[in-house]
């Protein structure tokens, strides 16, 4: 071992001891990965604005628009025109290969650009025009171009086409921003894929084209038979869709070949380093192979995947990244690293790390409300690791482990991992998960596989072999990546700001912030005489709000295949190849809908407070409470404090409050079976947040849990309100375990904080494993571990109210951090930084 390697090892050890994970990773990773990691242009918006230097990409918008103009009077059906627009973009856009990269593919033209699709929504085009920082130089000239593009698409964008479809009253309520999140359309949302068709190494794009050609020829023959039949319209429609699919596949092969050509020319004529020349030729070979043909090795497999994602994200704005990378790429890793040994594990890590980096840099220009809700990232890309195969056997493999090692080296904030835990997961895999958590990555989060498989079967009737293949469709909800199981576009719009449910009980459905009637016209709260009546009003409001959202999404879904088809997504989906229908057509999809329930727990704490202080102890009347809420608690501070402090809160293993949570969920679950998606399937709810708690804080008014307008809302999911879980982490899990995670809802997000000292050493691993086994025994479907770090503790010093539950530990003694003297707090923070706290 050379001295340099020894020095690096020592440095790394020192840095890791001091919990300086970023710097340790910097030293540990290869030169290539270090370069590529630092090459990333961070695309997440902060406060709704992109980082300095990041610019909107005008090239795609121009290419797309110029082709649209050309085809405006073409007699082709829309799906073919749209496919041609995409092909025109892919054939003519700038493509690049980053130095030291082995993988290629990006939706923008250059690394610092953010792809802008002008055909999605006019309001998005207005935002590009008005963006203070993201218009490239020369600003005036480019603004003129943006304006011209915007003018062309005014009235023609997808959203413009969708608007008339909605019920105007529903639309007004949704656009008010009080109860929902964004607008429903199929070219913006979360799209799962039929990975069982396209990622199992059985076919490449050329194989699909060949099959389409066959089907087209056969159907063409049918159509030309002497007997004219009434199915002709349907048949022509199929032909159109297949043609459109072919166009996109050919364009996909075409752009890959453009990358190959770039690589060959630079290798032959521009690159002087012989090693890099070899790498470029390898890239060329890879891009000539995929996506036309199925991959043969790990580099090709990753490249195939990236192309699919790139093409998909050229076709639509995708806000998630459903994937199961260890499952679908694992066989290639096994062959390259373990069997043929054409890659060393370190070389494989370079590829895996770069694969994550390619995902981390993806960005599509999104509307401001979406950027604000997703502080710092472009979307929630939760990759699914672990779990079982279709037979129920453990699916973890060496690539599962390698992904976690790579994650610790590249330390990107996105993608993150959701690990499908089951009882047969081996210790060596658990160790990797533990190491990621210890090193402050904040992921993987754990999903309870047996519970979620049963959940998928219960809510959506997926057969067990398909349910077992599930991936996270967005951040939480399982969806099988199978022929009839995959959901092509889950609209973010099916997201409810649930705090409004309890608010509307007091206002009879009138929203005091946006000043309009949104909810149900339930009786005057002051007139309700017992808790049952009160609870019934709550149920009515819940139904009203969910109905509005579901109606809107269903309407949009029904029209999606014709107004906003997805020929590329269809081209890689077996049911579409077979049927000639668009991927968004609901007739061949089993259905996997869910309503994301933001701000859910506020309802529980509020109902519990009302039950205790109004009906059990009769300390206040509903009339008094209604008045206090109307006045935003002003002049009622003593009363407000009672509702904060003297009422039981969720998350403390208190049977009374917990029973209210279960009751609320079961009412929603009952209603979920009445609401149907276009495929005829159920609409269960899924309590979680993104940054919804910040986004909605000025939209939700005063509530009976003591909240005032403007106060931050709770963390989300079924996590207790900040600082309100006073009985420790086990009590939180106990509360959560009273929910049945199979049938009471789709899934339930739970965040917990752990302290680094608990997790140190072998003891820490044993402790964590025992904790995870307990979590699993309690039948809870999700848990995300965040480490208490010095930042958390400093925040606790500033806002002790929110951090009352933070416990710090020293050998044998634990104390609530906020109770400790300032001087000692500072000391503890110092120790935490040093890994001693």
């Amino acid at each position, binding site marked *: 071992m050379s001295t340099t390697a020894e020095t690096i090892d020592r440095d790394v050890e020192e840095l890791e001891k001091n919990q300086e994970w970023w710097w340790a990773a910097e030293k540990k990773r290869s030169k290539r990965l270090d370069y590529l990691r630092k090459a990333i242009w961070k695309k997440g918006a902060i406060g709704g604005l992109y980082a300095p*230097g990041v610019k909107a990409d005008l090239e795609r918008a121009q290419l797309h628009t110029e082709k649209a103009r050309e085809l405006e009077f073409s007699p082709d059906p829309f799906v073919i025109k749209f496919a041609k627009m995409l092909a025109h973009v892919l*054939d*003519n856009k700038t493509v*690049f*290969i*980053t130095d030291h990269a082995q993988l290629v593919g990006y939706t923008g033209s250059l*690394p610092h650009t953010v792809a802008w699709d002008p055909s999605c929504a006019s309001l998005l085009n207005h935002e590009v025009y008005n963006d203070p920082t993201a218009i490239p130089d020369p600003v005036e000239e480019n603004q003129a171009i943006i304006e011209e593009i915007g003018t062309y698409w005014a009235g023609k964008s997808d959203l413009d086409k969708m608007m008339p479809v909605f019920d105007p009253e529903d639309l007004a309520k949704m656009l008010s921003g009080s109860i929902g999140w964004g607008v429903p359309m199929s070219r913006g949302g979360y799209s799962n894929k039929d990975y069982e068709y396209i990622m199992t190494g059985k076919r490449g794009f050329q194989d699909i084209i060949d099959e389409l050609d066959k089907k087209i020829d056969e159907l063409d023959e049918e159509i030309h038979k002497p007997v004219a039949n009434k199915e002709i319209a349907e048949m022509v429609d199929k032909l159109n869709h297949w043609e459109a699919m072919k166009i996109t596949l050919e364009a996909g092969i075409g752009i890959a070949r*453009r990358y190959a050509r*770039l690589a060959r020319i630079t290798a032959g004529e521009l690159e002087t380093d012989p090693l890099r020349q070899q790498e470029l030729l390898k890239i060329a070979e890879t891009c000539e192979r995929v996506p036309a043909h199925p991959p043969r090795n790990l580099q090709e497999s990753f490249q195939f995947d990236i192309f699919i994602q790139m093409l998909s994200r050229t076709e639509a704005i995708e806000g998630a990244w459903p994937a199961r990378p260890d499952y679908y790429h694992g066989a290639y890793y096994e062959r390259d690293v373990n069997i043929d040994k054409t890659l060393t594990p370190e070389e494989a890590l370079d590829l895996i790390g770069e694969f994550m980096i390619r995902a981390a840099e993806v960005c599509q220009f999104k509307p401001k409300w979406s950027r604000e809700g997703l502080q710092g990232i472009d979307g929630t890309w939760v990759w699914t690791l672990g779990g079982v195969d279709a037979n129920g056997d453990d699916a973890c493999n060496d690539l599962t482990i390698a992904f976690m090692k790579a994650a610790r080296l590249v330390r990107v904030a996105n993608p993150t991992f959701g690990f499908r835990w089951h009882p047969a997961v081996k210790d060596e895999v658990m160790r990797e998960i533990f190491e990621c958590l210890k090193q402050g990555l904040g992921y993987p989060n754990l999903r309870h596989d047996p519970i979620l498989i049963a959940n998928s079967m219960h809510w959506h009737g997926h057969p067990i072999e398909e349910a077992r293949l599930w991936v996270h469709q967005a951040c939480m909800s399982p969806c099988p990546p199978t022929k009839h199981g995959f959901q092509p576009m889950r609209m973010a719009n099916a997201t409810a700001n649930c705090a409004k449910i309890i608010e509307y009980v007091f206002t009879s459905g009138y929203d005091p912030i946006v000043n309009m009637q949104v909810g149900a016209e339930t009786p005057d709260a002051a007139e309700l005489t017992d808790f049952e009546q009160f609870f019934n009003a709550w149920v009515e409001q819940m139904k009203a709000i969910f109905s509005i959202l579901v109606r809107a999404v269903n309407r949009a879904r029904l029209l999606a295949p014709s107004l906003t088809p997805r020929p590329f997504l269809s081209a890689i989906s077996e049911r579409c190849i077979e049927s000639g229908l668009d991927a968004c057509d609901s007739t061949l999809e089993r259905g996997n809908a869910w309503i994301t329930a933001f701000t859910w727990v506020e309802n529980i704490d509020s109902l519990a407070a009302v039950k205790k202080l109004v009906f059990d102890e009769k300390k206040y009347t509903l009339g008094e409470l209604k008045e206090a809420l109307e006045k935003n608690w002003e002049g009622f501070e003593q009363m407000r404090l009672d509702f904060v402090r003297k009422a039981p809160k969720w998350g403390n293993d208190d049977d009374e409050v917990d029973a209210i949570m279960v009751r609320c969920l079961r009412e929603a679950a009952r209603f979920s079976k009445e609401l149907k998606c276009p495929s005829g399937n159920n609409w269960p709810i899924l309590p979680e947040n993104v940054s919804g708690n910040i986004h909605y804080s000025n939209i939700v008014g005063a509530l009976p849990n003591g909240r005032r307008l403007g106060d931050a809302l709770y963390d989300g999911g079924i996590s207790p309100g900040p600082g309100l879980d006073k009985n420790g982490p086990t009590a939180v899990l106990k509360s959560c375990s009273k929910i049945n995670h199979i049938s009471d809802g789709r899934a339930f997000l739970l965040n917990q904080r752990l302290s680094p000292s608990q997790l140190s050493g072998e003891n820490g691993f044993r402790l964590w494993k025992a904790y995870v086994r307990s979590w699993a025994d309690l039948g809870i479907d999700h848990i995300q571990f965040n480490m208490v770090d010095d930042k958390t503790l400093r925040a606790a010093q500033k806002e002790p109210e929110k951090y009352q539950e933070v416990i710090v530990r020293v050998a044998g003694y634990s104390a609530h951090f906020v109770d400790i003297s300032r001087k000692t707090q500072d000391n503890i923070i110092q120790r935490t930084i040093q890994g001693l706290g």
Partner: protein
Amino acid sequence: MAQCKDCERFYVLEEDDSRGDCIQKGKDERQAYFYTKPVRAEHEADGCDSFHPRKN
């Protein structure tokens, strides 16, 4: 009048000599990269900052 085909950055398509690629090296604050943009051989190059006459 200069045309793209006169530029050393222009790489003609074998199958169609009316078209080719403009290939350049780029560098921004974070990374260096090679990039390519399809162009017509006879596209006017007079206003192009990157035009470099080919030395024959």
